[in-house]
């Protein structure tokens, strides 16, 4: 239940509801959408990326001198777990055609396509269990131009405009033209899409869409897709080997500058294993657990940006690593679910963001960065926010409107996960609005790829959230579920083809020594060892007593801790 002091504000929401419902029934926007100039202003004044200390130049590596998100620059200027002389590369522990790092949506798609199209064997090494991934969590849905009024080129224009015209065009073309095929591929694997009576796929609006284009599986879209893909992967044990709790910590190269596999770390036994692979795919997803600028996150436990740092040390170029996506609607109350995602589909279905006086202050379906900035503005500048008992801010997201618009039972059927999340705390979202604030959600940038998922390193492929370029500096809802399907499949296709032709040279970890030297030469001083693998949520006093684990900076020792935040506050 909401605390008593919020009741007055809740009453105002009820008072304004009838008029807002009227408005929502008309075919005009309930609030005027911003023009280009208004968008620019709200971003510059209120988006966290635009704060003065949000970015800093990175001092080493392929993007040296470029301004990146500060926490990302910290992550890249870190030590490896390994020194080259510690690892014997003469007899790899495992050999495979295709090594897939990350058992989320992109990784599973790639393994299946490499097998189907090229008869290629793969090894999936993943950090936690298969499917412990952002892919499992997407609720809202996936964009794909499947309806009669839509077309892939309309989708293209929406995606490019949402990304502020900075997206790599060939990637957006690949994304949008493969969309309908992905819907069919998944359906044939057994994904149960929401449908209309006549069998056509149900489509809804999302932020920044000019056509209804969001396809979904109730609000368990990601879970449905992830479980279907995993199930199919597991149906081919002879072709696809799975190693769980075995994250990669470094890439292995050959003496001709090709990527040739990776070093894995067993979380149980703390052993390191070498994998020799003809081609390697990084499908490690995003970085929400870095808690950039102290924000809560919607991301899964293992989202620590590992792929970025591994690829960077090997010489891969990053793109748009100065841009972070804050989801406009993370939960702000109750405290236990702070930062949890409230799917954008709630606004797609008619839910409206309101200030403490129950008034609209923004068009509910602006692109994400605009919507998030407008919510921050409303709280920080206009004083329209409501403060929670623990000192968080939030605005209302009026969910009871939805059943009024679509008929009783709509929320229960379409948003069972949302309903469940709140009813545990005595909040019935059919009767009461939710209190929300932006939450750290998505890694807009990443390793630069082309439409075949190739990087500037031969033999190294990247797909999914770990990549940069596709979304420009702002991804639209539904385009990343499509992303990991489209580019996971494309990666399987091109990495599979490459694996058939390449002859690897002598394996090497010399790039790690070179990177260490570069750190020293650039005067970087840091205790951070990365990849981070898992964040630590132990309270500070506990961490102080964890002498070895918490404070250890020796490569190869048991540092499963995210020291990032403290490093920064001590510095």
């Amino acid at each position: 239940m909401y605390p008593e002091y919020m009741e007055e504000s809740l009453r105002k929401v009820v008072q304004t509801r009838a008029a807002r419902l009227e408005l929502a029934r008309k075919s005009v926007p309930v609030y005027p959408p911003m023009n280009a100039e208004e968008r620019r202003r709200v971003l510059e004044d209120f988006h966290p990326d635009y704060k003065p200390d949000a970015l800093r130049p990175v001092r080493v590596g392929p993007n040296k001198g470029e301004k990146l998100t500060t926490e990302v620059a910290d992550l890249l200027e870190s030590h490896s777990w390994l020194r080259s002389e510690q690892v014997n590369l003469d007899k790899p522990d495992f050999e495979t055609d295709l090594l897939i790092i990350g058992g989320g949506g992109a990784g599973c798609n790639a393994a299946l396509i490499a097998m189907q199209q090229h008869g290629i064997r793969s090894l999936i090494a993943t950090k936690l269990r298969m499917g412990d991934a952002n892919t499992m969590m997407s609720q809202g849905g996936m964009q794909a131009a499947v309806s009669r009024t839509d077309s892939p080129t309309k989708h293209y224009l929406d995606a490019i405009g949402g990304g502020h015209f900075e997206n790599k065009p060939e990637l957006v073309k690949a994304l949008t033209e493969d969309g309908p095929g992905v819907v069919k591929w998944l359906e044939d694997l057994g994904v149960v899409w929401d449908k209309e009576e006549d069998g056509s796929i149900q489509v809804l609006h999302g932020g920044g869409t000019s056509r209804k284009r969001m396809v979904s599986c109730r609000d368990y879209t990601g879970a449905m897709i992830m479980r279907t893909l995993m199930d199919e992967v597991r149906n081919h044990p002879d072709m696809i080997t799975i190693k769980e709790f075995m994250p990669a910590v470094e890439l292995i190269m050959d003496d001709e500058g090709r990527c040739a596999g990776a070093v894995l770390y067993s979380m149980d036994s703390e052993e390191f294993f070498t994998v020799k692979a003809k081609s390697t795919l990084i499908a490690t997803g995003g970085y929400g657990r870095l808690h950039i600028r102290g924000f809560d996150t919607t991301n899964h436990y293992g989202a620590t940006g590992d792929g970025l740092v591994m690829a960077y040390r090997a010489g891969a170029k990053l793109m748009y690593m100065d841009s972070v996506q804050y989801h406009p609607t993370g939960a702000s109350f109750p405290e236990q679910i702070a930062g949890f995602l409230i799917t954008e589909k709630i606004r797609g279905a008619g839910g409206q963001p309101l200030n403490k006086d129950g008034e609209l202050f923004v068009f509910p379906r602006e692109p994400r960065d605009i919507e998030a900035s407008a919510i921050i503005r409303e709280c920080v500048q206009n004083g329209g926010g409501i403060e929670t008992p623990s000192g968080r801010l939030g605005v209302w997201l009026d969910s009871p409107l939805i059943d009024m618009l679509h008929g009783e039972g709509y929320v229960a059927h379409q948003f069972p996960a949302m309903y469940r999340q709140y009813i545990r705390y005595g909040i019935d979202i059919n009767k009461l609005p939710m209190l929300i604030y932006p939450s750290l959600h998505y890694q807009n940038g990443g390793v630069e790829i082309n439409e075949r998922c190739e990087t500037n390193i031969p033999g190294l492929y990247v797909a999914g959230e770990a990549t940069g370029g596709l979304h420009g500096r702002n991804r639209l809802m539904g385009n990343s579920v499509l992303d990991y399907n489209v580019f996971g499949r494309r990666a399987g296709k091109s990495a599979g083809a490459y694996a058939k032709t390449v002859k690897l040279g002598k394996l090497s970890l010399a790039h790690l020594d070179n990177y260490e030297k570069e750190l020293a030469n650039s005067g970087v001083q840091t205790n951070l060892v990365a990849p981070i693998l898992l964040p630590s949520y132990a309270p500070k006093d506990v961490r102080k007593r964890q002498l070895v684990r918490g404070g250890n900076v020796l490569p190869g020792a048991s540092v499963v801790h995210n020291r990032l935040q403290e490093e920064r506050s001590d510095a």
Partner: protein
Amino acid sequence: MTSVSAGIANSPTTSAADGGREAAERLITVYIMGKAYEVPAEATIMGAIEYAGHQIIRGAGCREGYCGACATLYRLPGDYKIRTGLACMTLVEDGMTLAQIPSVPAEKAIYDIEKLRPNVSAIQQMYPTVFRCVACGTCTKSCPQGLQVMDYVQAAKRGDIAAVMDLSFDCVVCGLCMLRCPAEITQPLMAILAKRLYGRYLRKDSPELAERVKAVEEGVYEAEYAELMAMGREALSERYYARDSE
């Protein structure tokens, strides 16, 4: 957290548990795998385990109620009942004694979905244990998602694949039902098969989907793509802001 500039990040700290002990309000005692710890009264089980200083490796995945990695068994003081919950979603209570069950041994059947049909014999072949159900209802009682698990098992016995799909849609495969089932049935695994069978065979086909896929293959959109991709930023921007909306 010095990097936070006032008024922008929503939280003074990165997690509810991160404030340190001094910030915590009321503390209660819980027994994590038998050992007593003082934890905040308002914490989730997952938050409490982390507050106690454990680094969870198994037993946490999504942290938001979707992945089923965090299945937990617990008892409350003076109560004989074994209770079940997701650690990321369940609040602690004073005197609670708990253990996480991050993995429930179970064998997934291997199949070629193209060779199965959406009927009772698919269930019989792949998950024959389903027919051992004694209708005791324990699975339904133990489901943290509140699903009618026994009903979907019964539907599977009848070969009603659509009902299994519908009733098991929100299953997070935490495994708690199969852990408690006296007949040793692997409900969530069977349910994944049933959902795939429904999606593959029982769906109503979308007429326009096939047409759209074909149109893309035939290059119907190539000319328009070429035009858009050749446009400069200005022209593209103009086109974007002038586009009509549904």
